[in-house]
């Protein structure tokens, strides 16, 4: 069993959560860190009172990590690190994710959606830019930003914190920022380019979920922590390498996991280094990889309940391709995009003439997809999707009458 400590401090968080989703602190005229602010509260390992109610100026005010300037390891209060099998591409940054679920509460398992996390849950994701992607690891990287998702009484709050140049302090930047960056990838320098830290309203552009495409209520939802993305191994150090879902269940932060893990959907792992092995994959494997990649990079918007529901392009991993090719974009003309010289979202067998491929490759703001939070082309992701499209057969014709 795990030895991860769970702090009792979370019980006070529940009591305080009633003051609501940051409403007390969303006034720019008022400095967030007033003397009476919970951000200055020093009791407890984690500052649960502040997490529950305040958008603190300094990330360190929440005391989520033992070393306030290192959000990549040693979480306080029972935080658990996790990874996704195939992550969202973010300009070749490394990402360090932790989930903190209050003692005595559990996230409810969901087959398809992000788990239903209890009030008081915090998810942190730190983006760090390696000097060279061949040598990742925080010691070779520059911390850019740490994003917090805090499950408050009123719903999720999303807070972007930007690290100072020294990497000692991260400060709340509700309006986001543009950071000039370079990175060496496969021996080539990319950039300088603009790494965009989304503003708070842009967070929800991706992090939203409606009950259906006709619903007007758009909840804020985490994107990554879905069963199919977590269903894989993670190296927990002294506790060995374990399946993340099993680990979460044993740690007492997840309930409802099916007893038979083999029944749980699993997005296949695709990391940049996997590009080399695409040549030895079967077409079915390529399709599963591509659909997994599109799920984590596109389907949070491109689904009937998402922000791009108006496009008619639906790319969830679980959606059956054979019976829903049109929804996947095959021979589908775009709804909200002129198309340039291209006609179809996906033209089977012809990635170069498929809009989906073109927009993944594009970096100019009018064409690129995803529309926000990406400046570079993800060569490995584009190559995977190209290979998948080039494997597809069929012909999109409409001869004119």
């Amino acid at each position: 069993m795990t030895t991860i400590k769970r702090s009792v401090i979370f019980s006070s968080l529940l009591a305080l959560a009633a003051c609501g989703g940051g409403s007390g602190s969303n006034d720019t005229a008022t400095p967030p860190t007033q003397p009476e602010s919970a951000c200055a509260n020093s009791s407890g390992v984690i500052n649960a009172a502040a997490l529950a109610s305040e958008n603190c100026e300094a990330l360190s005010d929440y005391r989520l990590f033992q070393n306030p300037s290192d959000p990549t390891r040693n979480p306080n209060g029972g935080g658990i690190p996790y990874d996704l099998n195939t992550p969202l591409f973010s300009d070749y940054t490394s990402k360090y994710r932790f989930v903190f679920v209050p003692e005595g509460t559990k996230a409810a398992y969901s087959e398809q959606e992000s788990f239903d996390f209890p009030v008081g849950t915090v998810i942190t994701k730190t983006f760090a830019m390696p000097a060279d992607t061949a040598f990742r690891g925080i010691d070779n990287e520059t911390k850019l930003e740490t994003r917090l998702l805090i499950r408050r009484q009123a719903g999720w709050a999303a807070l972007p914190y930007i690290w100072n140049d020294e990497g000692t302090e991260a400060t709340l930047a509700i309006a986001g920022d543009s950071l000039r960056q370079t990175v060496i990838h496969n021996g080539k320098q990319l950039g300088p380019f603009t790494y965009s830290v989304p503003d708070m309203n842009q967070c929800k552009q991706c992090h939203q979920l409606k009950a259906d495409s006709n619903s007007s209520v758009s909840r804020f939802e985490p994107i990554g922590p879905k069963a199919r993305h977590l269903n894989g191994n993670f190296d927990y150090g002294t506790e060995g390498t374990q399946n993340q879902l099993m680990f979460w269940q044993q740690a007492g932060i997840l309930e409802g996991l099916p007893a038979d893990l083999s029944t749980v959907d699993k997005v296949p792992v695709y990391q940049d280094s996997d590009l080399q092995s695409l040549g030895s994959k079967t077409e079915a494997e390529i399709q599963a990889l591509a659909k997994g990649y599109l799920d984590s990079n596109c389907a949070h918007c491109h689904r009937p309940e998402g922000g791009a529901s108006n496009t008619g392009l639906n790319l969830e991993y679980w959606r059956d391709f054979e019976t829903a090719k049109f929804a996947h974009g095959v021979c589908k003309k775009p709804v909200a995009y002129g198309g340039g010289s291209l006609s179809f979202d996906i033209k089977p067998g012809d990635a170069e003439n498929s809009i989906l491929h073109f927009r993944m490759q594009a970096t100019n703001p009018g064409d690129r997809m995803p529309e926000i939070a990406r400046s570079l082309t993800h060569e490995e992701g584009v190559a995977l999707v190209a290979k998948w499209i080039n494997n597809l057969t069929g012909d999109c014709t409409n001869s004119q009458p």
Partner: protein
Amino acid sequence: MTADQGKRQSAGVIGLTLALALTGCGGSDNDNNDSASQNPAFPDDAIMLPADDLTRAAKEAFITAESGDVIVFPEGRFQISDTLTFDGDSAGTGTPISNITILGYGKDKTILDFSQSTGGDGLFVQNGQGIEIRNLGVYEAANNAIKLINTDGIVLDSVATVWEGELNKDNGAYGLYPVQSKNILIQNSYVRGSADAGIYVGQAENIVVRRNIAVENVAGIEVENSINADVYDNEARGNTGGILVFDLPIGQGYYGSNVRVFDNQVTDNNTDNFANASEFAAGVHIVPPGTGIIVLSTPDVEIYNNTITNHDTLSVAITSYLLADDTLLTTGAAEYAPVVADGWTPVPRNIQLRDNDISESGASPRGKLIEDIIAGYTAFHGGLPAVLYDGIGELMANSGMAAALLGAPFGDGERICASSNGGVSYGQVYGTDPTDPANGLQNTPSAPEATLKFEATQTGLLACSTPPTRLAPAKATINGKAYGCASNETGDPSAASCAL
């Protein structure tokens, strides 16, 4: 207005009173001046954004906005470095903040220039309730100028969305772009240069679009997959296509009906499509250059008392989706079936075209989508008719051969009717009677044959013995106030249009 008055008079008695009543309408006779914005008065508690670091200031004001806020952009032209995103319900509670007003000093005085922005859209609003944007211009956005999604209550008043300079494919897609939203008023605005549609209302309902000027876009004004829309007293000129009423197979449960297009000036829409060169164009890019008004697939549309003049190809086209994609009944049938099950109708029904003043049509017809039709009409009739109906959807529906996709045979009250549109020519590509051998369905193998019907002046084509029932007027209710012909508003400059 003199020439216009003359044309209106020829359309009938009511044309004269209309023209007189509209003489005072400022919106349709100048492009970029707005007397209402000369001396803007802002409420005392308005949030006045500073000119300095405007992008950040605007973002912070949007992020921290509370119900009732009035946010004012400064006077001048400013480089904005990212999309300005407003989310009415950033916490996702289902109870959005409401009544947010975003102002400038005039659509030619406050110009937000996105040419250097890292974001695709200019202003982007989602999950809002009661959003009013007035008196500002959004220029050179990479993608869309002002996009709003999932928002109930939208006023876009006296705004400009502009791509300057030569028209080219790198211009943004949509100017004013509310989508999957409801209760939408767009008025007194100016849209120029968009590579898709200048004003595009999509997957929406309760829509009033009036007194706008749409110039030199691919599509001037487009209502797509939308319900209860009134488009009136606008000017659409110099676009590829003037005003479009489209229903596309999107598959997300939003399909259009009850759209009225009336009392608009639709002129000189002869600009070549400057955006899309694809083999099988999508959306508005199928529009043949030189087209005034197009109805594609949408049922329940009433087009009346418009002036439609000087179009190289067609003045009015009414067509089923079979014209856009003739694989619908063959190789594409399997893909379209779920969309039809979702509610989409490929064949338009209950369309009325009446009392329009149509002139100067078909001087230089072109357009890839209809090149065979152009060739056929040119060969047999010396040119295209001013009003063209495809007929193929109705023919196939009447045959009962594809009822699952096209619906039942046309019944009373579902016909395509035209009357009193002046002495213009009419055409119908296919006959609609499946038992008429000329239409080809009696042949073996059975295949529809284009008969290219043509009447130099209307005698039988699209003539209905009983006129269709008039459609209900629309209204849009925003922040408790209702606008449009179905509302009780008084003193609106376009009130005379509603009386037509």
